């Protein structure tokens, strides 16, 4: 453990706030009067947004990571929090998604203090805390606790409805997630047994035989892939994400699956020496490519909007796994590489677009009482803002310019061309075409004038439409950022095997 | 004194083991649930009781000895309760075997 000593950075307290604020929010939810519940949750999420922005500002202005030693104990004995560039960006992204989701969900679950609103707000805050910890946790076991927190928060959201189908979907999700966590924990045991530390920075500086590390990362990645629904471990995702209430689906699809993905990213990019990662990363890329193709093909065949959007998540998650071969294959410093930025952009663009898409799907369901795509004709007339939201989100999902999705896929293509890896180019292109196919299945009927006026079941609340629209607009706006690797994302990265 | 005590302990512990073996044999060989239950309770109580008795002189401290006794009492009491509950269920669920046992 030759790594230099870590010290709490000035302003590091914000990292503690990122964990503690949502937790205090949870405790308050159950102690205040029912009428105040939504306001407590909203206040906690706004405070969380403030904290995330503060972290991002500190990291970008100092061009150095923010660190905090909990209890003042130095790792590996103690636990540290450390927000590097990518962690700060993702924390800000998650906090930004959560606020519109909360605005959208306000009042959507009936009287405050009842079962569904209480559970929803509790779990939403728990997801906030867990994600913040995942993004800035530095200790593999601490990350395990965060992963479990995330699972325990996500599963009740799936079965919020209480119907038989959602209970079954939740149970299947839980089984996958638990198998995933125990595999992750197995890897933690192997790593501690071999190196006597669980601190990411300490582990990155380790030299010598790495057979144990390879086995550990192998089982951990399998576990995390199950939690991220990487093909072929994706079977739990569509029923779970389609069965949850729209506001919950938005968070599950946009953020929760990214938590486990982020840990996988850390393991591969921080701990594995690049030359050891080539074969494995290619395998991950192959699974990702299969997810892109098969997820999109399944999305094309769905008759119901929410299931279509859920299968689209399977496909879009596949793109994320292309980052492994593209980022680790070149052997160059991975954090300034195009692929690294492309992956981060894809993750963010998908988060915003998919949250907007699920929320819009919920609004459609409320407006016309069903979500059968075949009967969407004339939707544009009765819910124009919602259809606009779906259109903008779709542009990003397909990867048309200008949008976050376009930038991400363009950078991925650049990276693939740069390596002469034409097969990844083919996958990315095919995925874009298939995505165009499934989103046009929604949009074309929605824009077609109806033969007979479509029945509107319930008026749509403009506040909720605006919340969804805001997310879709952000997905588009990301596309206006410069099309080049972001220096911000490379701040404070620790590269395995680096001198 | 210590020789006697050692002899006593040895005998008690060996007897305890014998009871455990007997309980196992009963569990395996007896024909129906209620007689098996009978065998089991015997082994439980006497086997553990004798072993605890044999260990007492070597407990090291009064506290440890007290714990040993409490452990035995807990197991004894729990065993009796469970036996009673199992018995009640067994009588209702296997009236034939219970009848056979009474005969």
């Amino acid at each position, binding site marked *: 453990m030759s790594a230099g000593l870590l010290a709490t950075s000035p302003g590091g307290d914000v990292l503690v706030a990122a964990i503690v604020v949502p937790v205090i929010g949870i405790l308050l939810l159950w102690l205040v009067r029912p009428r105040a519940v939504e306001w407590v949750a909203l206040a906690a999420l706004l405070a969380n947004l403030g904290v995330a922005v503060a972290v991002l500002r500190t990291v970008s202005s100092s061009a150095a990571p923010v660190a905090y030693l909990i209890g003042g104990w130095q790792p590996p004995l103690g636990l540290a929090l450390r927000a590097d560039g990518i962690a700060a960006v993702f924390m800000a992204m998650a906090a930004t998604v959560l606020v519109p989701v909360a605005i959208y969900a306000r009042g959507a679950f009936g009287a405050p203090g009842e079962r569904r609103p209480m559970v929803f707000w509790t779990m939403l805050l728990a997801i906030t805390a867990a994600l913040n910890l995942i993004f800035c946790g530095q200790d593999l076991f601490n990350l*395990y606790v965060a992963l479990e927190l995330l699972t325990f928060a996500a599963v009740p959201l799936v*079965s919020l409805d209480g119907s038989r189908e959602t209970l079954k979907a939740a149970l299947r999700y*839980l089984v996958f997630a638990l*198998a995933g966590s*125990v595999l992750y*924990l*197995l890897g933690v*045991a192997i790593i501690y047994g071999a190196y006597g530390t669980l601190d990411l920075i300490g582990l990155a500086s380790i030299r010598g035989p790495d057979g144990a590390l390879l086995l550990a990362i192998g089982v951990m990645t399998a576990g995390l892939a199950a939690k991220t629904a990487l093909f072929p471990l994706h079977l739990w995702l569509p029923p779970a994400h389609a069965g949850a209430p729209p506001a919950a689906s938005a968070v599950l699809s946009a953020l929760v699956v990214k938590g486990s993905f982020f840990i996988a990213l850390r393991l591969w990019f921080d701990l594995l020496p690049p030359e050891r990662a080539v074969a494995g990363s290619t395998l991950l890329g192959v699974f990702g490519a299969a997810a892109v193709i098969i997820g999109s093909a399944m999305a094309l065949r769905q008759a119901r909007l929410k299931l279509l959007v859920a299968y689209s998540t399977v496909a879009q998650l596949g793109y994320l796994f292309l980052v492994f071969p593209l980022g680790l294959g070149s052997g160059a410093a991975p954090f300034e590489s195009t692929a690294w930025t492309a992956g981060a952009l894809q993750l963010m663009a998908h988060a915003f677009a998919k949250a907007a898409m699920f929320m819009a799907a919920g609004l459609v369901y409320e407006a016309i009482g069903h979500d059968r795509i075949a009967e969407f004709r004339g939707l544009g007339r009765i819910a124009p803002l919602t259809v606009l939201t779906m259109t903008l989100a779709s542009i990003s999902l397909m990867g048309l310019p200008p949008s976050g999705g376009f930038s991400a896929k363009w950078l991925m293509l650049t990276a693939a061309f740069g390596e002469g890896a034409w097969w990844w180019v083919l996958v990315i292109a095919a995925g874009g075409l298939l995505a165009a196919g499934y989103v046009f299945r929604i949009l074309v009927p929605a824009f077609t004038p109806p033969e007979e006026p479509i029945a509107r079941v319930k008026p749509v609340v403009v506040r909720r439409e605006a919340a969804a629209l805001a997310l879709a607009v952000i997905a588009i706006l990301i596309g206006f950022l410069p099309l080049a690797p972001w220096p911000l994302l490379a701040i404070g990265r620790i590269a395995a095997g680096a001198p | 004194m210590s020789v006697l005590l050692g002899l006593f302990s040895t005998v008690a512990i060996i007897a305890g083991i014998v009871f455990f073996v007997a309980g196992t044999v009963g569990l395996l060989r007896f024909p129906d649930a209620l007689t098996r239950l009978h065998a089991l309770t015997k082994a439980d109580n006497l086997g553990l009781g004798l072993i605890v008795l044999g260990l007492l002189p070597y407990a090291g401290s009064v506290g440890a000895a007290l714990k040993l006794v409490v452990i035995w009492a807990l197991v004894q009491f729990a065993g009796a309760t469970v036996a009673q509950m199992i018995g009640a269920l067994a009588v209702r669920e296997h009236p034939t075997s219970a009848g056979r046992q009474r005969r």
Partner: protein
Amino acid sequence: MSLAPLDAATLYGLMGAILVGLGLYGVVLLGGFLRRLLAFNLLGGGVFILFGVVARRGAGAGFGGDPVPQALVITGIVVAFCATALAITLIERLTEEDGDDPSGGGS
């Protein structure tokens, strides 16, 4: 690197490895949610034992074992219990919803 001595830690380490293998097989292959949940717990037990072996081998400074992995296992056991309880509640709810339909079943 040399072969580990034949001691309690090694014996239990091999036991842990086999338990993990058995549990993994069960989690992936068994039908029915309850059985998978049991397999998950078997697997978890094996993983915890491996932590215990690591702790045992790290004995030193007057401790019978490295306290850090032991503490991790205590946290892990509590979390595993919570997971099991949540899953069991779901299984029972599902059975209730299913009425006379056979429980679990699905994969």
